[in-house]
């Protein structure tokens, strides 16, 4: 039997992640993927595309609108519902925890939707790990720049070398039980005001 292609819509506020998921779905044998950002006529677009499955970022406020559409669809020929397989509540929990929701046309077999959902979950998790790491790196870099600026200010004002300037910042942070970045910010702010 020839397996008909499953048409999948991905609704995601983050275009980067949407591309990542589309590509991964393509590799996994689901080439028919349309990524949609949120728009006012989302429901019209969906009606046009007529997908078999919809993956949605749970941070998207339009999720409640989709729920309405699916509620109304109960009365038409292709009712769509949230992916709910009672034998597999663990994967629903994993999806919600990862931040992705899946809606599928009634009658679609779980063997067909399960790989799609698993893939979406793993990509959502990977993306949030990536973002956390990126955020941590960004914060560390920003702090280092701030400390460098504060050191420069202290060196000029007090006529000391870099090592001495760093020691002052570190000692103050320890004495006040604050982060060295906070002390550096105070030095920079004070210098800006006093200049």
């Amino acid at each position, binding site marked *: 039997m020839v397996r008909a292609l499953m048409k999948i819509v991905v609704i995601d506020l983050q275009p980067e992640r949407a591309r990542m998921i589309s590509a991964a779905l393509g590799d996994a044998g689901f080439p028919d993927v349309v990524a949609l950002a949120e728009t*006012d006529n989302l429901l019209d677009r969906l009606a046009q595309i007529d997908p078999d499955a919809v993956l949605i970022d*749970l*941070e*998207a*406020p*339009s*999720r*409640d*609108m*989709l*729920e*309405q559409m*699916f*509620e109304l669809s109960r*009365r038409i020929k292709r009712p769509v519902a*949230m992916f*709910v397989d*009672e034998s597999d*509540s663990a994967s*629903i*929990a994993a999806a*919600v*925890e990862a931040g992705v*929701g899946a809606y599928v046309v009634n009658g679609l077999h779980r063997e067909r939707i399960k790989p799609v959902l698993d893939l979406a979950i793993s990509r959502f998790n990977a993306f949030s790990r990536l973002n956390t790491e990126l955020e941590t790196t960004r914060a560390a870099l920003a702090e280092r720049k701030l400390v460098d600026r504060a050191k420069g200010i202290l060196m000029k004002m007090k006529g000391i070398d870099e090592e001495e300037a760093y020691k002052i910042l570190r000692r103050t942070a320890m004495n006040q039980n604050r982060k060295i970045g906070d002390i550096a910010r105070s030095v920079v702010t004070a210098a800006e005001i006093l200049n």
Partner: protein
Amino acid sequence: MSTQVRIGFIPLVDCAPLVALHEIGFAREEGLEIALSRETSWSNVRDKLAVRLYDAAHLLAPMALATNLCLAGPRAEVVAPYVLNLNGDVICASARLLERMAADGFEGPEAMLEAIRRDALDRPVVIGVPFFFSTHHYLVRYWLASAGIDPDRQVRVEVIPPSLMADAVRSGVVDGFCVGEPWGSVAVDAGLASIVLPGRAVWAAAPEKVLGLRRDWVEERRDDLHRLLRALYRASMWVADPGNRTILSELLASDRYVDAPAEVIERALSGSLTLTPRGAQARVDRFMVFHAASATFPWRSQALWFHGQMARWGHLAASPGSTAIACRTFAPDLYREALAAVATDLPGANSKLEGALEAPTPAASLRGRLFLGPDRFCDGAVFDPDEVA
């Protein structure tokens, strides 16, 4: 060590009891630590409760029913042992729609109804509600039907998240809407819409949000449930005290909670509304009720009323089974169990006539000190739960 209770909520004035529970320390007094999470959609709140990411949730009363009746979302059994508030919604019309009607001498609610009857925009008027299974949706349908309008044919209902309602008016997606405060007042202040009717004019005692919990959590953690409800009862009293309005509105205004100006939030708390962009004022008695008489008691008759409305509009195929599920969803037994020693009084019954009272009326109760508040419907109908149960 205190026990943690994770609660999801939507930014609305009526999340106030949950915020007070945490911020004013009522939970701590009972040895509970509350972790509040702000959500972007009602579906998220429902799903995270169902899959155990939350222990409890700020839920629209009909959502609890829809979940148990397997109408939407993951399978889970939810119980509502506590009503967070009665009323607090506003029905608004866009400035555009009202302008069109003003030329013909109509204003206020009649202008909105007449615009719908006449297809004043040469197409069905579009009305926004925050969720399909919402108090708002059923109040709007009730109101329209009582004015002889068929809500399935003569208007189009669109779901719009509460905080995006003003934007939806601005971009012309909706011509009118019913939403929980402060989002109606925010649209008024932006000059986009006017409040034509407070929700309480449709039903004077509509249970708006409930505290929803999973049945298994309630069974396994009965003692925590009792502590949570006791703390919540005190939080509701604090929220309802007019002396606390200033502090409460400042707390809610924070971007962790409602993220709207404190002054706008205070309008809903006091019932002193600004109706139009030009500043017309109105004082609405019992606009949003957090704690009066039996306001927080989960009457089975309230659940049955919603069940009846869902069936009326074809959102549910009613059966003796669905009626039983609706009855089980609201849990007055748990309320009694937890609050017997704390509540000033408890009603003698679990169900009552809905819509029969014009004024506060004494009711049968444990200590004989209970008054029921006015609960009239806009069409004067009386709902008798015994006729369906």
